[in-house]
């Protein structure tokens, strides 16, 4: 178990290094002049003389051979200097850190409906195999799986905002945002809903919740369909196993057979796809934050990409990858805890 985790931990920096190498190499297609613009605050950049520009190129090593350039960039990145974000109008690292809690909150909230509803419906479908309920759930699932997130998001906005007026786009209402930004508002976790509760401001909690429900609904819609399908097929396989038959023959109540004997073993393949799900939820935040006009690193990346703000795109993608690798590591460890066969193998 420990060696398994240590091995994974050792692999982690290597993968992150590999990702940074790929992304960095891709950006070299641009050439030194375009790249320099990505490092400097543009207000300063326009006033610089050719000599100063050359000095800056020197500082960021843009005239050096590739390997050296990568080394310099990596060293700066490790020190937390990823360049200047034109979209965020602040250093890239700062822009990412200040926006990350919003994205994290969105992804965390989306996990609950995905895992809860997905597994629940998957088990229900498997237990009622080939009955009406099974067909119904499967049809909904495949339709859900075919819905592009931005189409669904637009529909959610139309129905729940424009028609019903329940879930407005954005992150917070104007009045709430002013309170949150005021100096005596405690920011412990930087997650809006949690901080609101800590501050005892139920009105802000409610406001943040109203803004997050639409995006969460959209983000989870596609992935509960995915999880449902995996749960169903895994559950069907387990239900046909001998030990389930034995349990039934012994007279164990059906409810107990399903929830104690079958479901637990059926969950193992479900945990393996959780990795794909984390990737999906994270990628999904990009488009969903744009549609719902929410603050977050996803919208930061999208805006930076449209405005050709290379430094931000590079830094943001790297950050997403680190989160992704960390998420997968946690899942692998959980998996090893659940399934002893993995750590022995």
């Amino acid at each position: 178990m420990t060696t398994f985790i240590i091995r994974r931990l050792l692999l982690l920096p290597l993968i992150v290094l590999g990702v940074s190498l790929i992304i960095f190499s891709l950006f070299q297609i641009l050439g030194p002049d375009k790249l320099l613009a990505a490092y400097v605050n543009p207000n300063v950049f326009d006033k610089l003389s050719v000599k100063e520009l050359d000095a800056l190129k020197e500082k960021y090593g843009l005239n050096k051979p590739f390997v050296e350039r990568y080394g310099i960039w990596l060293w700066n990145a490790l020190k937390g200097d990823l360049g200047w974000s034109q979209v965020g109008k602040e250093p890239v690292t700062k822009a990412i850190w200040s926006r990350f809690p919003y994205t994290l909150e969105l992804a965390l909230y989306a996990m609950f409906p995905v895992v809860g509803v997905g597994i629940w419906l998957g088990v229900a479908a498997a237990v009622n195999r080939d009955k009406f309920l099974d067909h119904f759930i499967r049809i909904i699932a495949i339709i859900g799986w075919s819905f592009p997130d931005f189409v669904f998001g637009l529909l959610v906005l139309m129905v729940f905002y424009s028609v019903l007026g329940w879930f407005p786009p954005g992150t917070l209402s104007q009045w709430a945002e002013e309170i949150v930004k005021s100096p005596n508002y405690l920011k412990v976790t930087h997650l809006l809903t949690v901080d609101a509760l800590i501050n005892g401001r139920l009105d802000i909690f409610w406001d943040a919740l109203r803004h997050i429900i639409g995006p969460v609904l959209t983000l989870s819609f596609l992935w509960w369909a995915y999880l449902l399908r995996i749960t169903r097929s895994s559950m069907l396989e387990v239900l046909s196993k001998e030990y389930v038959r034995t349990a039934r023959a012994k007279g164990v109540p059906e409810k107990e057979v399903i929830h104690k004997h079958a479901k637990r073993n059926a969950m193992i393949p479900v945990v393996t796809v959780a990795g794909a799900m984390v990737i999906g939820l994270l990628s999904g935040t990009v488009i969903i934050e744009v549609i719902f006009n929410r603050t977050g690193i996803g919208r930061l990346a999208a805006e930076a990409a449209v405005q050709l703000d290379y430094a931000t795109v590079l830094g943001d993608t790297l950050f997403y990858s680190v989160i992704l690798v960390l998420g997968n590591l946690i899942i692998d460890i959980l998996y090893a805890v659940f399934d002893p066969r993995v750590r022995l193998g």
Partner: protein
Amino acid sequence: MSENNTTKMNTEFKRVLRKILRNPSAVLGFVLLAFFIVVAIIAPVIAKPLNPMMLDENGNPTKLDNPYIMPIISWSSEPVPPSAEHPFGMIQGRDIFYGVVWGTRTAFYIGLTVTILSTIFGIIIGAIAGYYGGWIDEVLMRITDVFMSVPFLLSAMVLTTILGNGLDKVMIAMTVFGWMGAARLIRANILQVKEEQFVLAAKSLGVKDFFIIWRHILPNTIFPVLIQASMRMGSLVITAAGLSFLGLGAPLGYADWGSMLNFTRNWILGTSGSAFTYWYAVFYPGMAMVLFVLAWNLVGDALRDVFDPRLK
């Protein structure tokens, strides 16, 4: 011998066909797919690529230079509800019906190109890794891991940003970051087949490596990869449309479902309280995309059920 083989093929084909016909969702998938193929083929007939704003000397509309750029037929950018002349309505001065119909071609073009290219690329990498094993395998698979550690939409976004906007750039980006699934699958399959008698026999006869992979191993491992590819078609089209929706893919006014939905964004956020007045602007391109993806998902599911009962 060969006659025997064809009859064997025929019975196998009939078995597959029977299995597909018995499954209603598979039938629905194939019907939908056939429908989209027909629409794509007859696009010039049902949505004539003419420009009513540019008349020739006889007063007839001129032909479009590029039928994939939706002609501007009205100077008002506000959406216009469906009418007899424009059955799906208009948005940004363009006919939605025209865009949806020609968008079918765009969807097929993007989906097939990226799927085929990335699958071939994945097969090459996976085959080399699986067949040679050892350090080659180790290096190639770690590279695969690294490529898998960047969220697909973001990596495609990064490369599109660097290469510049445009559909061809989107397709390059999605190919560069889309081959890993196929590579892993073919590698795993080759590891299994590699030790089979017929491969060992070919090896001991001194057959060249390339020939062994091409003639003996690939035909025995290719099916799951093709099924996986058909299941990926849908999500690839969604990703490409997503990039267009963000303004990174197809140029403005291109007959592409994603960029048409990009138009509607302004109208939905801009008209609180009366968004349903513009329902058609989201509904038609959105539905086209959902049905297209649904068709591929159903077909992929059906193929998987038929050819790989283990995965059911």
